[in-house]
């Protein structure tokens, strides 16, 4: 095993166990760590000290780009590139450009939301060191895991191990990098 492992992994038996352990890891000031649970636990994001998702920012930018794309598309094609009088209407009006702009706003917002979510989650990710843990299958079934990365500035093999054990973690083990 290399000198520096990827991190430490601990197992917990119940939801309250992992919830309170997460609070202790949060209060100890760790930033680069995660919980692995078989199902979503309400309030765990707060116990972990996570803020609001940043996905909406991607959505908003996508929406703005979609709207301007729609408006510019109709303006460029109708008023610049190939001006034609249709139905006695002006070459360009935001009125008839609106349905297109509106649809593209929705489409681009959806793309940006999905893309932003994948990007922020670091997906697709084909391999992660936790997959080598003996406990990982249980963590997708009936156990709750906490993983603390070694790249966390506060990480210290002995101290972090002690913290996880004090928080009630079982089978605290090093993850192969």
């Amino acid at each position, binding site marked *: 095993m290399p000198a520096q492992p990827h991190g430490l992994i601990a197992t917990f038996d119940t939801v309250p166990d992992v919830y309170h352990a997460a609070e202790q890891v949060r209060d100890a000031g760790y930033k680069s760590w995660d919980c692995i649970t078989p199902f979503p636990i*309400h*309030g765990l994001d707060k116990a972990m000290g996570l803020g*609001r998702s940043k996905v*909406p920012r991607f959505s*908003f930018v996508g929406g703005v780009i979609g709207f301007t794309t729609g408006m510019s598309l109709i303006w460029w094609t109708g008023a610049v590139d190939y001006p034609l009088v249709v*139905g*006695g*209407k002006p070459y360009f009006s935001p*009125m*008839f450009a*609106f*349905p297109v702009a509106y649809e593209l706003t929705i489409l681009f917002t959806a793309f940006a939301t999905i893309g932003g979510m994948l990007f922020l989650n670091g997906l697709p990710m084909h391999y992660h060191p936790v997959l080598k843990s003996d406990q990982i299958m249980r963590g997708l079934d009936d156990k709750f895991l906490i993983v603390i990365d070694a790249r966390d500035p506060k990480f210290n093999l002995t101290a972090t191990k002690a913290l996880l054990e004090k928080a009630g973690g079982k089978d605290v083990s090093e993850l192969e990098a």
Partner: protein
Amino acid sequence: MSSTHAATVTGSLPATAPAGIAALATKALTIGAIGIGLTIAGLFVSGGAKVAYSWLVGLTFWTGIAIGMLFLVMIHHIVDASWSTVIRRQFEHGLAAFKWLGLLFIPLVAAALYDKQLVWKWFDPAFDLAKVGGTGTVGEDILWVKKAGLLNPTFFVGATVVSFLIWIWLSARLRKASFTQDFDGDLKWTSHNRTTAAFGLALTALTMTLSIIFWVKSLDYHFFSTMYGVWYFAGCIRAALSAGVIIMVWLYLRGDYKGILNNNHLHSIGQLIFAFTVFWAYITFSQYFLIWNANIPEETFWYSLREINNSDGVPNQWKWVGLFLLFGHFFLPFLTLIHYRVKLSKTWMPRIAFYIAFVFLIDLIYNVWPSKKNELGDPLPFLAVHQLWTITAVIGIGGVCVWAYLKSFPTAKLIPIRDPRINESLTHHE
């Protein structure tokens, strides 16, 4: 199913009216009486025709909120919603206003039947259109002749009476089932209300559409729009949700909702207001856009007179009201409510709610008042003395509605304590 949690929360509820509610109800009724009194005084200042329009705005505003509440209660039941269980009871209390709104409608309809030229000009086929910048009489107007099968006083009165009876009946059914469940906890009331909602939604959608076509759209009977009922629906729901926010925060600040209301309730109702803001914009824009695009005089006149004078083509005040609706009823709430933290704020949400209800009123004024034209066919201005009676009418009818709500408030538990979804609602989370 039965909720120990709910029982503890509501265990301290007093059996009698919570302190101050009775006094508040009296105050509301007094304010209502003053508003109605001032509106009557307006008859001697601006005359019956104008005060009738003001009264119509006041009625469509408050009836709209009640219809919105009726829809929300029924939508709650039909989709078996959980989070809105704690606020549903307040909407049920709001439904108590229907019978009073029906009563307050009577003088308007009676006046319109007594003087058939007063409000809806097509009540009298002999109406001389020269008085509103046209030619000939209503009876000679092909656009009325073709619509006369619907647009006649008999149908008008029939539709209005039937609509109110249906709303009052549905409200009574929904309220009785919900209130009775507080005592016996019988699940049959929940399925009973779901059945009521199933046919009630269809009935309310039809009667609401028919009513708003008669009450407001037919003021300018030339107009065609298939969006009209949906436009009113959007406004009603927005106003009712806003009233819901105001009531939720009011009850929270009073202390009644402490331990009941959590951030996620506010977040959820905020999301609904946001969704209906977009829905309103979609409907209102679609109506405008289709008419603008098709460019048919029978339709475009409606927007033209809300932008420029018929006689000289000079922009009138309604143009600015229209622009205010675009920016004030869509962009401002849209850009405010899009923020997560705003939706959680007990300071901002009631402010936004009051504002949306206010702009719903402006939207109604925009739909009602420009139909009142002078002999040149120009709409009367937005800002004028007669708008005072719109304010007094809204206050007067509003006082009665708030009184009806407050009078109903102590007659049932604060929240439906034995509703099968009450636990889910009390622990509502994102």
